[in-house]
């Protein structure tokens, strides 16, 4: 596409966003409740959230670079970049938060059958089905391939039994993408990747309260759950390939947190009100790293698109971005002082500041801990010996 075409696209995109993104969706979110997740029984803190999600979903712009046949926007990488830039310029909120978009979608695009893609992807794009991720188990965290939840062959379906843990939003999700053991004789080679409805008989969840005072996490139990074999993605016992591919995308998504949001930076806003010279220096040095990491993210995306990125590079992004994000929130709390300690007040943005600070401590754990990412960088990029 020529530069003039791209300029036209930019102008049209800007005009469309200005006309269609409600004013309320151009303000900073006031905490996790303001996030839009969609699903069969969606919760919206404000009616404009639904309007904004639907408008973007209709154009496929919740997933701008997916093919339009699967509900995407069918945009080229250059157009996708323009859309994101224009959204950032207007400070548009993310229209849809979704594990379907950031995790399952890419895996289905690569490994799913045509039927699976047509069934699931458009619904993900429009926010109609909310997904959760059933990977971790009580004895399979970092050592994920040690998972035990089993899927026994019963002809045209599997019978799934076992327990998952740390399943984010399992109690609110409609469907789960889940790793199960189909062969006990091989560790990584005995895992399959299956999709099923959380309303299936035998599925139950129990929320776990977190330090942030929220309980997005669950223990998830499977008691003789019937899962059609048609819901298996990729070959039997080849689920580890899908899992790893998906983890790459999950890590990329999480690393994006290191970039901060589109709507200004609370840390710098707080610093402008006045901080001591030592804290000011710490914030300034943080700004160096954070802006350099922004450049790194841009470079990483450019390299990915050009097929030049090292396959283990998402580990570096995840490691760096999440450690950075934790520091950002630590400094935000320090700069805000006692205002940011109030659990639910105007000054603390209704507790958004302290809760977000606590939530970020999970960034370097979820999706594989920092230590695991460093292991991967050492082995796969630096080629250090075992």
């Amino acid at each position, binding site marked *: 596409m020529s530069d003039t075409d791209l300029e036209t696209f930019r102008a049209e995109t800007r005009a469309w966003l200005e006309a269609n993104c409600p004013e309320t969706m151009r303000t900073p979110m006031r905490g996790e409740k303001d996030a839009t997740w969609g699903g069969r029984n969606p919760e919206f803190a404000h009616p404009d959230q639904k309007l904004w999600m639907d408008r973007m979903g209709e154009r496929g712009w919740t997933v701008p670079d997916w093919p339009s046949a699967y509900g995407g926007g069918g945009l080229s990488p250059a157009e996708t970049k323009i859309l994101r830039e224009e959204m950032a310029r207007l400070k548009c909120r993310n229209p849809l938060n979704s594990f379907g978009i950031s995790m399952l979608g890419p895996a289905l695009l690569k490994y799913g059958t045509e039927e699976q893609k047509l069934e699931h992807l458009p619904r993900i794009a429009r926010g109609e089905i909310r997904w959760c991720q059933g990977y971790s188990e009580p004895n399979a965290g970092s050592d994920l391939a040690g998972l035990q939840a089993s899927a026994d062959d019963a002809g045209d379906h599997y019978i799934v039994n076992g327990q998952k843990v740390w399943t984010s939003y399992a109690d609110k999700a409609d469907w789960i993408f889940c790793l199960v053991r189909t062969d006990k004789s091989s560790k990584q080679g005995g895992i399959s990747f299956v999709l099923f409805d959380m309303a299936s008989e035998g599925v139950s969840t129990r929320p776990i309260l977190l330090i942030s005072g929220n309980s997005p996490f669950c223990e998830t139990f499977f008691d003789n759950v019937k899962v059609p074999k048609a819901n298996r993605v990729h070959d039997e016992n080849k689920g580890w390939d899908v899992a790893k591919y998906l983890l790459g995308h999950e890590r990329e998504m999480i690393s994006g947190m290191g970039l901060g949001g589109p709507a200004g930076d609370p840390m*710098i806003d707080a610093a402008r009100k006045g901080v001591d010279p030592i804290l000011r*220096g710490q914030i*300034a*040095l943080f*700004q160096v790293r954070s*802006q350099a990491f922004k450049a790194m993210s841009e470079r990483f995306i450019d390299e990915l698109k050009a097929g030049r990125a090292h396959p283990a590079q998402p580990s570096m992004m995840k*490691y760096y971005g999440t450690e950075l994000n934790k520091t950002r929130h630590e400094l935000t709390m320090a700069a805000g002082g006692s205002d940011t300690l109030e659990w639910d007040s105007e000054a603390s943005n209704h507790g958004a500041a302290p809760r977000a600070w606590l939530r970020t401590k999970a960034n370097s754990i979820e999706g594989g801990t920092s230590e695991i990412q*460093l292991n991967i960088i*050492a082995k796969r990029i630096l080629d*250090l010996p075992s």
Partner: protein
Amino acid sequence: MPLYLTDEQTMLRDTARDFVAEHAPVSHMRRLRDANDATGFSRDLWKQFAELGLTGILIPEADNGLGLGHVEAGVVIEEIGRNLSPSPFLTTAVAAVEALKGTPHAARWFPGILAGETVAALAIDERAKHDGCIEMKAERSGNGFRLTGAKQFVAHGHVADLLLVAATTEHGTTLFAVPTDANGLTADPQRLADASLAARLTFDGVEVDADAVVGEVDQAPLARLLAAGRTGASAELLGVGGGAMDMTVTYLKERKQFGQLIGSFQALQHRAAHLYSEMEVARAAVLKAQQLLDAGDERAADAVSVAKAMTSLATTLSVQEGIQMHGGIGMTDEYDIGFYMKRARVLAELFGDANFHADALAQAAGY
């Protein structure tokens, strides 16, 4: 513009990499140091740079240069950094060229730079820390100016053919191109920790003609000069940090203790992986700054500060971890890793250290 090197830029990098590694590896610098060489670099090598066209990398094609940008200059400088090659490339072919470009001085100085005969030095700093404060005075005198004051940390200042001197004039700062044989100018070269030479210069009423002014009176193209210099120094830091990291990772794969390669110890693996991450982030920051400078983008100033600060931080980590992971041998003069440590410190200080540039970012952000 994607944030990676184009095929042409990669080819240029490979050429520079082969050339520098062959003609000026670390042993070249070590030889100059051991011989107590008084110039600080090899004039022969500077000529060879010119023969490859590299000294004209930023000189416009209309002036017989290659007419390339800061990305291209950077890939050459990075190799200079990786091999710790003493070279006037950064001060002459990058910072000075950028300052002289488009002024009448271009016709006067570019031919010598293109031929690898002219070396330029930058007389900017007056204190131990780069702080942008200029007390040197240039007073009107006859049809020219009279310069009085002192400068320090002037790389190649004792052997340069051209000095670019920043001085305070009535309503601002002016940049002067001063010939080094001017009356009243004395140079006192000092050897630095990295064995390079930097001069303390004293200007005792040095008279220069009005046409010594580069650009306009009171409006020194200092921002342009410094942006080029800082970006170049960042690229050199990348080379130093990358070179030290490569040495270290190689060592981790060779050295055995407790019957095992030390690179198999997780404590060291994690630190090496962390170091790799810092260096990659620094690399992205440098390319971003180079591209924005080349595009004349207004965001370049911030990006240059990010690049200079980030490379200073990352490379400092690289050389410190380098010595630590080498163990005792890393402390010996015979082994090269220590040279990386010394060069990194000098470059980190050049044109403003990490704190200076972080402070600039903070001011720009309004806190």
